[in-house]
């Protein structure tokens, strides 16, 4: 807010809301005032959004790693496999699982906006929505992967999926070598959000 007392020769950090934030608060106030929705509705929706997290995806991936029959179902009918695990993916119109292989890596972007498998991964990270990622992921996916620490040999094929429509994609990362006798719960700790977007592989050890 620019008041006369601010005018004393130098700039102060501005705490003012952006245009879009002001607009969304104005719309919220109108919806409440006109009784279209209640404060409780808004809080329930916030709680619902916050409850969805990459832990859902990690559970699915770890199960697919230890149970080949589940993995086959997860790839053939991802929504049914989610229901089996108690994860509600019904909000997704069409859900496709992309299986990474030794000689193949998948990576997901939405160049048009920020389409993302929210019921499985929660809200997308800010970088996923940035112009930088949306431009460079399609032009130079290997360069983007290198920045996430994944250095792929030339003979590994990269497939970038631009999710422009009703399909939501989840990458099924490779199970790290040397984890053959690990428990499902420990395996899930190796499955990062970013490995399910496909910009990196799963971790090979549990983070401290």
């Amino acid at each position, binding site marked *: 807010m620019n008041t006369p007392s601010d005018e004393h020769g130098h700039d102060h950090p501005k705490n003012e809301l952006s245009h879009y934030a002001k607009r969304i608060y104005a719309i919220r106030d109108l919806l409440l005032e006109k009784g279209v929705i209640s404060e409780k509705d808004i809080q329930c929706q916030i709680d619902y959004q916050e409850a969805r997290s990459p832990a859902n995806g990690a559970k699915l991936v770890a199960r697919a790693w230890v149970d080949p029959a589940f993995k086959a179902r997860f790839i053939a009918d991802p929504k049914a496999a989610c229901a089996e695990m108690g994860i509600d993916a019904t909000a997704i*119109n*069409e859900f496709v699982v992309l299986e990474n292989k030794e000689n193949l890596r998948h990576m997901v972007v939405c*160049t*048009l906006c920020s389409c993302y498998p929210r019921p499985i991964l929660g809200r997308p990270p800010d970088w996923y929505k940035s112009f930088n990622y949306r431009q460079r992921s*399609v*032009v*130079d*996916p*290997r360069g983007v992967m290198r920045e996430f620490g994944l250095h792929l040999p*030339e*003979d590994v*094929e*990269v*497939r*970038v*999926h*631009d*999710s*422009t*429509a*009703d*399909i939501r994609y989840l990458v099924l990362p490779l199970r790290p070598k040397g984890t053959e006798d690990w428990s499902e719960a420990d395996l899930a700790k190796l499955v990062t959000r970013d490995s399910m977007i496909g910009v990196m592989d799963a971790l090979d050890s549990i983070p401290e």
Partner: protein
Amino acid sequence: MNADVARFRPGDRVKVKFEDRPGHIRTPWYIRGKTGWIERIHGEFLNPESLAFGRDGLPKKTLYLVAFNQSDLWDKGNNADKLLVDIYEHWLDPAA
């Protein structure tokens, strides 16, 4: 999914229409006019170009997963790398 109504089959070569018009277009600019192939038929979906304006989205449009060679899109790029985009049928023409 009703694949019977789909105009294209997996493997068919297709060219994305080069059109520039206003509206809620879900075909990214960078593949307009480019040639690729059908990788998969996703099925029939309500048309977002109609839904975005509060209309009913009918008739439904067949949606395809269309693959492009990275090296066909940009001057650089690994020869084996692909870019895959979901494209509605009315944006595709058959290609040689």
